């Protein structure tokens, strides 16, 4: 395996008395797409929300263990700094409705009060939108509201917004579950192109999607990490019986 950018050690998390994640140990290789799949309620979303410490924003949540980003324990840092290093894209596109496309892309700077000059702003906006494969479609009306875009375009705008902060890791929480097949294909293509620039952790309940675009796949079941390996190996010769059953559609 390549050198890991992110390592999860003995991690548990839950809501109140209800434990969701049970002793997770895994490492995410640098600049690869890792898919986390599993049936509904298995803790996929909780896991990635723990990585950027969004989990703790919900009242009555618990977590223990360590998550290391380049040997730095994320749970010893200020969550605000963690979230600036680890970007996140949600299930439903959520561009800021009060802002233009342009302002949405640099929202991470604007909202954090980070001062940057006009030239840098223009450069970041253009680069991020190009990375998110949205530049050609929106370059002529950057100052229109982001909410006028289609669902798929809005989701790519959200990806551009996360990329603009130059994150080490990009978390995608079922980014295509609210999109039509065409927009989904577009996002998937984009994810495959992005993996040279950033480490991507993709949560999906779509087995085929994990197979199509990920380099590594983790299978999570009832809060347990059942199996983790290269996508090719996990899909062709799964070690665990549960993985095999899930892949062959016996449950899920």
């Amino acid at each position: 395996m390549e050198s890991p950018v992110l390592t999860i050690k003995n991690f548990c998390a839950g809501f109140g008395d209800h434990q969701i994640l049970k002793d997770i140990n895994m490492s995410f290789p640098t600049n690869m797409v890792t898919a986390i799949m599993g049936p509904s309620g298995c803790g996929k979303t909780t896991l990635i929300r723990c990585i950027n410490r969004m989990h703790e924003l919900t009242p009555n949540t618990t977590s223990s263990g360590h998550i290391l980003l380049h040997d730095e324990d994320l749970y010893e840092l200020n969550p605000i700094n963690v979230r600036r290093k680890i970007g996140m894209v949600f299930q439903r596109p959520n561009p800021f409705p009060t802002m233009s496309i342009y302002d949405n892309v640099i929202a991470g700077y604007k909202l954090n009060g980070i001062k940057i000059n006009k030239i840098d702003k223009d450069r970041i906006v253009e680069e991020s939108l190009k990375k998110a494969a949205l530049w050609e479609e929106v370059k002529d009306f950057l100052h229109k509201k982001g909410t006028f875009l289609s669902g798929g375009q809005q989701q790519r705008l959200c990806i551009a917004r996360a990329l603009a902060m130059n994150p080490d890791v990009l978390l995608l929480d079922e980014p295509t579950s609210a999109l039509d097949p065409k927009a989904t294909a577009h996002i998937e293509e984009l994810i495959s192109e992005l993996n040279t620039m950033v480490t991507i952790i993709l949560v999906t309940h779509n087995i085929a999607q994990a197979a199509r675009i990920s380099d590594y796949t983790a299978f999570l079941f009832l809060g347990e990490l059942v199996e983790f390996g290269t996508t090719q190996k996990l899909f062709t010769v799964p070690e665990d019986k549960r993985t095999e059953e899930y892949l062959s559609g016996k449950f899920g």
Partner: protein
Amino acid sequence: MMKNGVNSRLVKDKIFLSIVIFFSFLSILPLLFILFYIVKNGFGVLSLDFITQLPKPVGETGGGISNAIIGTFILIGIASILSMPLGIGIGIYLAENKSGKLPYIVRLCAEVLQGIPSIVIGIIAWIWIVVQIGSFSALSGGIALGMLMLPIIVRSTEETLKLIPTSLKEASLALGVPYYRTILKVVLPTGISGIVTGILLSISRVAGETAPLLFTAFGSPYMNTNIMKPVNSLPALIFNYATSPYEDWLSAAWGASLVLVLLVLILNFIAKVVTKKWKVQF
């Protein structure tokens, strides 16, 4: 048989519709009558002098109500300065903390405060401020009106912010934006139209309040801009003039009523425009 059944249902439909339309029309009538009466009696008095001149003593013709107009603006200004930050702050707190003991109590208090008669608020302001300072003042009147505005602003802010999807807040937090900046820069701008509308409506609600002002701002025949001194206001002037026996004052009261009603109408109109133009689609 079949056809008859359908026909009778269609007739019932028509009758029901006409009754509803008739009632709706009926509800507009009082407003139309009031407007007609006020315009009929007040329009003749209205002139540039009427809104820019000070009142003249009984017997002298002419004179205006400029001190009452300025006074009303001062009172509303003081009330707004006090109730806006407080009301928006409490509204944010309640919208962000839907359950829990303290939010429950605060919400209950706001509801009860909204139900307290304005004259009682006036007495409270009188005891708390007028008696302490030893004089009627614009400040005490503004505080009384502010207490009336507060629950309206709290409720409208809370209701507006509750409608903003959590996903928007999460989008901001996930970018590493601190909680307070997320509220100030993302949540508030998204709900701005509802909040501003609530403020405007609360102003139009208290602009015509008379009872609390009788104990507090009291009224004054002079122009006064010192907030520690008594100040005249449109409702107080209307009350004093309309209960007087003088012909001049009676017609001035109609004129002042027209000015007050116009002020409230304009505020409501602006509120409508704000709701429509500043509405954020999400």
